[in-house]
């Protein structure tokens, strides 16, 4: 599998870098936070992204996409991570489109994927039910009666939950047996009767919602993938999300490393630049090394998506390495900046906060190392 970007992908990356540095600097995020913007992203920025065709990058060409694959989407997300630029891109493409590409029937693909590519449809995955990421053990229940699905239960911390046009909801529809795993995914309009959406404010100032389902009835046509047997589709969808989120996290880590190194070259104490102190040099050098190996794991995992390989091991490795290096680098960024690193005026706090939410989203390192161990039978 390729680990270097091809020429087209490099052009996409460079364009994304220039655009985001100019049109979506960290100050844009700061403004949204200051305004207590409930959406947590700028509509204007999203429209510019749509004009540039970004929602289409990872959509296959037969559905109106650009066919850059997830390496392309990952390159954009890395650049977005550098400036903390938020938009519906991640949840719509990395989770929503992934579920439809791998689980949707022909009608669903024909009707939904072109809309995603055009930027006319945004999606969110309503999956978590507790404070910790879980891929199994879903409680939110649905009964299938003829052509009708009746849903009762609660979903928590749904990213973009109050913004998305449609929700993909993970549901328990049957007891697991030899023939099925009891899981069904359904595409649901959030304005359906019986759905209550409550915004949850999180430290990263993005949109999250707790969503309650009370006797919500929808047609069985809303089901994506196999009925009663979609745990694998769910895992695959989550793996797309984990890998793409890891890409965004690398960008954040890179920005914090660069900013910290710049500060070490600028700040003087005891009559010299603090970057001349070996105690700080070695820690900064280690941060650089950790980030570079995490990058390789993430690019490898993005390539695995595009080459249709098994994703479980590479996704868990990529998310673990991204989690650990983003935490290391943001913690060290604060420490090396000293007191000023804790002021709201500096951007460092935004990265620190985004890092914490990203680590908890779609699996922390404990979750992924446990999963990796189970797959490798130890």
């Amino acid at each position, binding site marked *: 599998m*390729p*680990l*270097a*970007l*091809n020429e087209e992908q*490099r052009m996409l990356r460079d364009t994304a870098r220039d655009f985001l540095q100019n049109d979506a600097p960290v100050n844009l995020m700061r403004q949204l936070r200051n305004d207590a913007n409930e959406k947590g992203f700028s509509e204007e920025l999203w429209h510019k992204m749509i004009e540039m065709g970004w929602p289409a990058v990872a959509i296959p060409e037969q559905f109106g996409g650009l066919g850059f694959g997830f390496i392309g989407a990952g390159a954009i997300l890395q650049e977005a991570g550098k400036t903390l630029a938020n938009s519906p891109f991640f949840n719509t493409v990395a989770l929503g489109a992934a579920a439809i590409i791998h689980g949707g029937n022909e009608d669903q693909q024909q009707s939904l994927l072109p809309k995603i590519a055009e930027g006319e449809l945004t999606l969110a995955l309503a999956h978590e039910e507790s404070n910790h990421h879980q891929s199994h053990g879903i409680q939110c229940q649905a009964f299938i009666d003829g052509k009708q699905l009746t849903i009762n239960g609660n979903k928590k911390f749904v990213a973009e939950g109050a913004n998305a046009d449609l929700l993909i909801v993970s549901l328990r529809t049957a007891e697991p047996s030899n023939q099925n795993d009891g899981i069904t995914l359904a595409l649901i309009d959030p304005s359906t009767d019986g759905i209550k959406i409550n915004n949850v404010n999180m430290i990263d100032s993005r949109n999250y919602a707790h969503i309650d389902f009370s006797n919500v009835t929808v047609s069985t046509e809303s089901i994506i993938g196999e009925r009663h047997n979609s745990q694998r589709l769910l895992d695959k969808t989550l793996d797309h999300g984990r890998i793409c989120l890891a890409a965004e996290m690398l960008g954040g880590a890179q920005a914090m490393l660069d900013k910290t*190194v710049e500060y*070490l*070259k600028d700040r003087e104490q005891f009559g*010299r*630049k603090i*970057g*001349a*102190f*070996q105690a700080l*040099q*070695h820690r*900064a*050098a*280690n941060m*650089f*090394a950790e980030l*570079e*190996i*995490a*990058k*390789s*794991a993430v*690019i*490898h995992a993005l390539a695995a998506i595009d080459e249709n390989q098994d994703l479980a091991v590479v996704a*868990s*490795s990529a998310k*673990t*390495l991204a989690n650990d290096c983003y935490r290391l680098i943001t913690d060290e960024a604060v420490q090396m900046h000293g007191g000023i690193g804790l002021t709201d005026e500096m951007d460092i706090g935004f990265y620190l906060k985004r890092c914490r939410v990203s680590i908890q989203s779609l699996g922390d390192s*404990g979750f992924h*190392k*446990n999963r*990796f*161990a*189970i797959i*490798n*039978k*130890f």
Partner: protein
Amino acid sequence: MTDLSKFKQETSEWLEANCPASMRKPQSRNEGVFGGKKFNFPSDDAKLWFDLMVEKGWTAPQWAKEYGGAGLSSDEAKILNKEMDRLSCRKPLIGHGLWMLGPALLEYGTEEQKREHLPKIARGEIRWCQGYSEPGSGSDLASLRCKAEDKGDHYLLNGQKSWTSDGDKADWIFCLVRTNDEGRKQEGITFLLFDMETPGITVRPVPLITGESHFCDTFLDNVKVPKDQVVGEVGKGWSVAKALLVHERTMMADIEKNMPKPKYSVDDYAKNYLSMDENGRLQDGLIRDRLAQHMMRDEAIKLTQKRAFEEGMAGDFDMRVATIFKYIGTEEKTNKDTLITDILGMAGAGWDKENFSSDEQTKTHEWMSNKALTIAGGSSEVQLNVISKRALGLPEI
């Protein structure tokens, strides 16, 4: 057929016909052929294979024929190398002479020096050792103090060299000495060659924590070295030494290639030596976590090497990344050795040969001997200095 494809076919046929079957298996730690006056071949096949290859000039295939080589072009040498890899042929001869001094002489030596020393290296007649480090000069090698006094037609050497690998088995030494105390410390260093039989040299093997003694302390007490045994210019030995370091890395990679593939992976050890719970998971949660972490990181490091290569080919490589490999690779390797011995428990701390399997002994030995990896060839701390300066552009301390 082109000349190269003809060469490939002939080479392949010759190797098939002449390389003994036992020389086409991975070799153990004690089976390397170093040559030299005191050398005992590990087997008859090793001797036979060595003799045949010396005859062809293929111990040093790219050296000119008058220097004991075969005068192959770099394309031909690549083909030979590839064919030997493909057929898993062992290197007929290895060592400091072939991989380090030889290339340095080709670059810096006089014609007389080349004619004198290169053929003896290629034919495995003389085994060389390296005299660089001193008790007071390890990471800061350029501070070396071994003194060479100008006595007209010769130098008079006094001082001590440390970590002379196989100094007790070598016939000659290439050595860094100080010919000038003034100016920049790098500038008064000279690169000298001399016979280990020269009066005034005492070699004492240093027992290591593994119980082996590959390295020696070498004491120089009024040792006379003729002036025509200087390589390169007087006072410019540091450049010669730096050029040699590049060759040292090639040598390490070649040796690695001939090592047997490990019989078990790290997780095999965990499965074989530790208890599982009723769900088939390791009962020791901490080992389980360390194991997963190590396997992920080990793979990520390999992927980074591959990525560097591919990005290089695509013209999209950030050269700064090259500075991390020695540091992160050796740190992860020693981490792995510690993890394996932890998994083995008491079986990873055995000393005798009766109560422990040969594999257990090897793992215990590696845990000790690989501690050198993060020290030799630029310690991890020196590597971190290099990353700070060259990759991050941080100021001098």
